[in-house]
């Protein structure tokens, strides 16, 4: 009888430990840094090449999603090497093979939230910086959200600008 109780206590303890460790793991995971397949450089393209955000993120002004550029957009300039960096060589190779580069998304909202870029960028006239930080000065891809997207941030700005903050304007 006692033995059984003990084993229950033990397995209970083990369960607790396991669940504790899993929570820890999940917590760590959410802060995990995302490494992109290619060391893309926003600084070079914005400042040296002179591209605008809308040249690559085609949806920001006219669509709901900003979109990450497809290989087609890179191919207009990267059929051959412009510089000599290794990262560029990778891009040139991808272009010649017509392979999509498997970019990872960093800014992702849960699917129960409705967010529209055109509403904020075109109608709201909010600059990218407010929500994404100074992307144009990044020499390598962001590893995590520079400005974290949280409900608190969305609501604070809406409050300041007297935009509707009723739950179902954002939650679908």
């Amino acid at each position, binding site marked *: 009888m006692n033995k059984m109780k003990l084993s229950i206590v033990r397995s209970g303890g083990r369960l607790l430990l396991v669940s504790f460790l899993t929570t820890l793991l999940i917590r760590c995971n959410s802060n995990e840094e995302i490494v992109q397949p290619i060391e893309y450089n926003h600084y070079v393209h914005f400042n040296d090449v002179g591209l605008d955000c809308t040249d690559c993120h085609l949806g920001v002004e*006219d669509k*709901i999603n900003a979109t990450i550029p497809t290989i087609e957009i890179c191919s207009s300039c990267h059929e051959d090497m412009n510089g000599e960096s290794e990262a560029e060589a990778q891009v040139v190779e991808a272009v010649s093979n017509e392979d999509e580069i498997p970019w990872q998304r960093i800014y992702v909202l*849960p*699917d*129960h939230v*409705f967010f*529209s870029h*055109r*509403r904020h960028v*075109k*109608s709201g006239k909010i600059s990218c910086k407010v929500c994404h930080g100074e992307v144009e000065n990044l020499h390598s891809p962001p590893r995590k959200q520079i400005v974290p997207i949280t409900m608190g941030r969305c609501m604070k700005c809406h409050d300041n600008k007297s935009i*509707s903050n*009723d*739950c*179902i*304007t954002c*939650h*679908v």
Partner: protein
Amino acid sequence: MPKWGMVIDLNKCTGCGSCVNACRMENNIPVVGAEAAQEGRTMDWMQIITEYDGEYPNVRITHIPRPCFQCGNAPCVIVCPVHATFVNEDGLVGQVYYRCIGCRYCMNACPYTAKCFNYFKPETPKEYEVLLNPDVTRRMNGVVEKCSFCHHRLALAKDTARYEEREVREEDYQTACLEVCPTKAITFGDLDNQEHEVHHLMHSNRAFRLEESLGTDPKVYYLKREDK
């Protein structure tokens, strides 16, 4: 602010069930299976209530499609302990699933049994995943859900309207059940807009609302069935 509402003509409704199906597809409503259905765990946001009048063989059948009535004075809102359900500025009764604690007070309070509870985790076989509507989140088990008047369509409509720098027009925002109705029994729009048909229909002398005496102020009107 527009006051979104619906008028359903019971003369036209044949009880075909298209609206029920369209609603399931639009809102990613889970199918619970035969056994759970026997236990009353079906999840349909739009249901067809069938009313029988008279004795066989002189029976008169009336089909009453029942969405959420988006009551102006909603009993479900009054009882919610966590503000997961509320009447918003467009007059819609919102339900925030991540806020809901699954106490089901609201289900009990709703005189129209419009709310349902997620007994099961949402599961979709891989080959059916393409059928899910990406604009609507899937609810987890343990929360209450109900017809939203397809308010994700309103969010899109507002977004498009603002982009095109105009007001939301009624044709921008129509519900899924209405779109498929073969007899056009459902009319949807701004009840306060005198130019819209929905406004005239709601003032027709056939118009009534279910359990009006409860004072819930539903935004769904029915047009009484009349035999010619």
